């Protein structure tokens, strides 16, 4: 049984590059992801999943299901904005899930006394943890993966130290965050959309936004060109932490509680979603809006599996395979383009 499963992994991962051959990074060499030449792979995949969902289950296109899907997407999507920024800037953030857990605990435990201030405090705690990652990467010169893994450990410890059980939120005003919706579009989704718009504008219109792409493309050239690399990296991680903090607050609103064990696996979910959206894992390339379509696509795949009654444990297995396929496709193609290119 187990052997069979393991064998499946090889087979499917091997098939990845072929099935997604028209993938987001297909044969583009060093071209920028923003240039529009990257094809429409994300959009096509998105539509394919919608159609599959529509065919597979009559419950897929109901307003109830869509509403749930969209508010779920809001939480993961806001985390993914942060992950997107960090990846574009040439790093990875493995702490987003644990940081969201801290933020949900902070908001749940302070909302009663502090009100709105509690929300701000939660977001600030996320920003602080993000800043810690940034410091570890820039001052400590620790590779982002390990730095954020360490910060994730710290964050988990903090979340469980606040309380090793979930904290229920009773504030009724806070709950309207989740219960408000316009038609089948929940308020949470609107918040996500606004944040995407703001970050998109930030990336396009500000110097720092441009610098993210510059240091992610080639940190050394960026430094020589006068980009303050350390400061920009720090900003990327702080923003990611802040957004993870915001996502933690929204999760708390959805779940009506803060949960210390929240967010296990979210770092991988966000990376996968962003990669499905055509963002290069090597940094410097990728379109935010497409990345967000990647989030929706990724969640819809899970949603369709749920509606089709796929065993939840099997879903985990399939998700792992899906992530590998999504990540391997562009990486394999890239390797074909640059045979002597960068080593991982």
């Amino acid at each position, binding site marked *: 049984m187990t052997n069979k499963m393991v*064998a499946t992994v090889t087979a499917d991962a091997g098939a990845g590059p072929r099935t997604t051959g028209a993938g987001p990074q297909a044969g583009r060499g060093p071209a920028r992801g923003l240039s529009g030449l990257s094809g429409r792979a994300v959009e096509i995949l998105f539509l394919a999943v919608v159609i599959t969902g529509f065919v597979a289950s009559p419950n897929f296109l109901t307003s109830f299901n869509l509403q749930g899907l969209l508010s779920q997407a809001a939480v993961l999507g806001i985390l993914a904005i942060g992950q997107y920024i960090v990846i574009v800037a040439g790093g990875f953030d493995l702490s987003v899930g644990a940081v969201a857990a801290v933020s949900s605990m902070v908001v749940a435990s302070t909302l009663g006394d502090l009100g709105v201030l509690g929300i701000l405090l939660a977001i600030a705690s996320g920003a602080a943890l993000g800043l810690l990652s940034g410091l570890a990467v820039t001052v400590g*010169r620790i590779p982002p993966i390990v730095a954020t893994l360490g910060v994730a450990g*710290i964050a988990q410890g903090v979340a469980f130290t606040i309380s090793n059980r979930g904290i229920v939120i009773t504030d009724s005003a806070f709950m309207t965050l989740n219960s408000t919706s316009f038609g089948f579009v929940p308020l949470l989704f609107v918040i996500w959309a606004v944040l995407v718009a703001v970050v998109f504008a930030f990336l396009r219109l500000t110097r720092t936004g441009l610098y993210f792409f510059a240091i992610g493309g080639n940190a050394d050239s960026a430094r020589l060109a006068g980009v303050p690399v350390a400061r920009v990296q720090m900003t990327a991680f702080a923003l990611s932490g802040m957004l993870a903090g915001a996502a933690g607050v929204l999760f708390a609103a959805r779940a009506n509680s803060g949960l210390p064990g929240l967010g296990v696996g979210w770092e991988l979910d966000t990376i996968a979603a962003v990669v499905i959206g055509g963002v290069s894992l090597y940094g410097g390339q990728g379109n935010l809006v497409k990345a967000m379509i990647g989030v929706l696509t990724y969640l819809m795949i899970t949603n369709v599996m749920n509606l089709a009654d796929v065993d939840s444990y099997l879903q985990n297995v399939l998700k792992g395979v899906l992530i590998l396929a999504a990540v391997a496709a562009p990486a394999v193609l890239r390797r074909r383009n640059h045979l002597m290119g960068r080593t991982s």
Partner: protein
Amino acid sequence: MTTSQQVSQPPAETGPQPARGAANRRRLPGGAMVWVLALLILAAIVLSKGVFIRPSNLTTVLYQTAVVGVLAMAQAYAVISKGLDLSIGATAILAALIIGDSSSADPQFLPHLPLPLAILFGLVVGLLVGVVNGFLAGRTAVPPFIITLSTYLVIVGVTFMLTQGAPVTQPAQVLKDLGEARVWILPVPVLLWFALIVVGHFVLSRTKPGAMLYAVGGNETAARLSGVPVARIKMFIYAAAGVFAAAAGLLFLARTGSVSPSAGSEFMLMSVAAVVVGGIPLSGGQGKIRDVVLGVLILGIAGNLMNLMGISPYLQMAVQGAIILVAVGANQRLAQGRGV
């Protein structure tokens, strides 16, 4: 960023790294970690008011350290090759469940096997996981941490599918007995750990794949150009890590006598922590098994001390995260290298 000189220098000295022309920039010599360990032991004796040094406590420390010790060795192989294996913790638990269930008199999801075959089964599964990781690491350009994080997800999924979430509580009695048996004051799992240290050290320092592993970690392009079969070496690295992980699972099962599919969540972080605390740079190409053993002992003693002082396990998690940051930070500053 390592220079090509290192490539031809197999099981390198732990000592000086020819970094960026500055002769006085050196990474911590192995000796420094011995001093850290000595100081920690002293502090532990004082802070625990002598409880730490009791033979029963010392045995406990080693007993608890053995599992992570073996996992950390697997992690060291990956890190020296400039990779990272985040799947070993999950592999260990999967192997423990497989060995436990198939050796049980009343197996829940596997056919009954005699203990030696059950153990072999577990080790082979570990090997298979490693082969998948190694294949992907060698044949695609996907960063190893993403590959192994994905296989981690897959393994956890498989684990829960097999067990439906239920723990395995009745492994073969012989295994439980062995887990508690002692030679003098040393429990059998600890002796097994010592034996694996010897094996791990021997492979790394005395065999050809071991030497090539350093070459791949030091400078992959240079290694490839000088004829090292990089893809095959990566296969070897992750396969070895998978087998070590399964062996760690066996020790875990023998020690605890039962294993739940959700156990071992701390293994991933701890294995990385032990490697970096031992002073192995993440930039690859350097490090010895001795370093990992020191790292594991330091973490194990620190954990034991925190237990003796009644510090909550959650806070310990945070401390561990902080230790990673401090240890890698110190090391990177000294080595002036940037990697992964």
